[in-house]
C-alpha cells in the first residue's frame, strides 16, 4: 500500500500540480486554527488560518523540501500574521486578567487541587503573557501550545536556536515571577504553595 506523501513531497508536487497542496491544508488546518483561536479568538482565527494557507500556497516554491513536516513553516507564517494583531491578542489577555474569565481545559486539570490553583492563577498568567516581550511570547506559545521543538521554532521564526532557547528561558522566568508557587514540587503534606488567592 502506498504511503501518504509527506508535507515536503506534497508541496513539491504542488509546484507543478497546485491541487496537491490540499493535502497540506487537510493535514494541518485544525492544528493551525486551534493555535490561532487560543491566541486571538475564533473570529479572527477563521480569517488568519485561511490567510495562512493562502500565503503558504503562494510561497510554496520557497519551502525547504528537506523538511517533511510543514507544521513549523505554517506556524511561522501564522506568527507573522499575528504580528499585525498583537494589540488584539494583548487586549484579549488583559481582558482575561481583569475579569478572571475561566478559559481552561478541564482535561488539563484532573486533580482538584491543581484545578483550584489553575483557576485562581489564570488571570495572573494572562497578565504575565500580555506583558511579555512579543518575541518571547511567540517562542513560549509555539513551545507550549504548538509543541514545537527548539529547532522547529527556530525554523518557524527564522531565528538561531540559541536565541530561541534564551527567549524561552526568559519567558519562563517571567512567568514564574508572576506565578509564585508554580514550578515548585508539592510539599510533604501534598499541597501546593501560593496563588490560592487568585488575582
Amino acid at each position: 500500500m502506498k504511503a501518504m506523501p509527506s508535507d515536503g513531497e506534497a508541496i513539491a508536487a504542488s509546484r507543478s500540480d497546485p491541487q496537491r497542496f490540499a493535502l497540506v491544508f487537510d493535514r494541518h488546518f485544525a492544528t493551525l486554527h486551534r493555535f490561532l483561536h487560543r491566541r486571538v479568538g475564533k473570529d479572527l482565527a477563521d480569517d488568519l488560518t485561511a490567510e495562512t494557507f493562502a500565503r503558504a500556497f503562494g510561497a510554496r516554491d520557497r519551502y525547504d523540501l528537506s523538511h517533511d513536516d510543514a507544521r513549523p513553516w505554517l506556524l511561522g507564517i501564522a506568527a507573522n500574521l499575528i504580528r499585525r494583531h498583537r494589540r488584539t491578542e494583548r487586549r484579549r489577555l488583559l481582558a482575561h486578567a481583569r475579569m478572571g474569565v475561566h478559559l481552561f481545559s478541564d482535561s488539563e486539570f484532573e486533580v482538584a487541587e491543581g484545578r483550584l490553583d489553575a483557576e485562581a492563577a489564570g488571570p495572573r498568567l494572562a497578565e504575565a503573557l500580555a506583558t511579555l516581550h512579543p518575541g518571547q511570547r511567540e517562542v513560549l506559545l509555539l513551545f507550549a501550545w504548538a509543541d514545537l521543538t527548539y529547532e522547529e521554532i527556530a525554523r518557524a521564526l527564522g531565528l538561531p536556536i540559541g536565541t530561541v532557547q534564551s527567549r524561552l528561558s526568559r519567558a519562563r522566568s517571567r512567568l514564574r515571577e508572576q506565578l509564585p508557587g508554580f514550578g515548585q514540587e508539592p510539599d510533604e503534606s501534598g499541597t501546593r504553595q501560593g496563588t490560592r488567592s487568585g488575582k
Partner: protein
Amino acid sequence: MDELEFLRGFQGDVSEPDEATIGRARTALMERMDIEKSRFLRPGARPLAQMTLPRRWAAPLTVAAVLTVAVALVVTILLPRGGRQAAAAELRRFAAVAVERPAAARLGPGQYYYLRNEGWIQITHATTSDEAYSVRIPIVREYWIGDDGSGRLVDTQAGELLWPGPLDKSRWEAQGSPQLYGPSDQQYGPGELVGPGLDGGALGTLPVGYDFASLPRDPEALYEAISSAAAEREPRAPEEAPQPSSLGTFGLFIELLYTPLTPPDIRSALFEAMAYIPGVTVVLDKTIPGMGTGTAVFVETVMGGARIRLEFLVDPTTSQPLGQQETLLDRAWWVDADPPTVSHSIVYASPDVVESTARRP
C-alpha cells in the same frame, strides 16, 4: 505542576474548527489552485484501467518572438455558425482523417520516443487573500519515453521572465523577488515514468502506459468515460462528489490526442467524442503566431469571475495537434493585463524516436 504545564492548559478549551469555517478556507484556497492549475498545466498519468486518466497535458511553449504577440486570431469561419451540429460535423471530419493517420513507430530495443514542446507558461502566486502577481516564463520541455516506462524529463527556462504588467513585477519585488522557476532534469527507471508510481510526485508523467483497449470506441461512451475521469481530478473536499468541468474534460482530450502512443482508432473516436463537451466550438483557418494555421477547437469557462478560453490547434489535413493556447477574456485580479491576454501558449513538435535518453534528434 510547573508553569509550562499550567500554560499548556491555559485557554486550551477552544473548539475544533467547524465545517463551515473549514469549507470557506478550503474554497478560497482551491480558487487559487484552480487559477494556477489553469495556467501551469502538467501531465500526470495513471492507467486508464483505474479510470483515472492522466492530468491535463500541457507542457507550455512557444518561441520568444511569440511571447509578446501570442494573441493571434485570424478567424475566417466560426462554427458553430450553424450551431453545435456544424462543430460536430467538423470533428467527424477530423475523426475520418485521424483513423487514416499511421500509428506511432514501434520502439526498438533501447529506443525512446522524444517529444519536445516549447513556448511559455504563466504562473500565479497569491501574496494575500486578495492580491496576486503573475509572470510568464519561456520554457522548453523535453520527454524521452521508453517502452518499459523508463525515461527522462527535462525542463529548461528559455528566456527572461516576462511581466504581464508593472503591478505584477512590483508585487513580486515586494515579496523579495523570489525565484519563480527552476530547471529540472530527471531520469526515471523502468516503470517510473508511467502509471501511478509518480502520482503525487513533483513531476507529472506522460500519458503512456494506458490500457487503451479498455476505452470505449463509441464516441458518447468515450466522452462519458473521459468526463468521469476528469471529474476525479478536479479539486474538491473529501466528502464532495466528483464534478466534471468542461475545461478539465477538454484538457484530458488534449492529452490523449497529443501523445503519439494513442492508437488511430482511439484518436478518431476522441475527435468525435469532443463534440459532446458542453460549449465546444470549432474555428476554421485560425492562425496563431509561432504555431501555424489550423482548425481550433476550444471551450470556455469562468474562473474567479473571469472567462478563460482553452484552445487546441489541429492541422486540418493530417489531424496532427499543433499546439494549445489559453486566453483570459476578462480582466482578472491575479494578473495586471488588459483582456484578451494569452496566459499560456504551447507549440508541439512532431515526435521522434532516439537511441537513448542522452540523444536528441
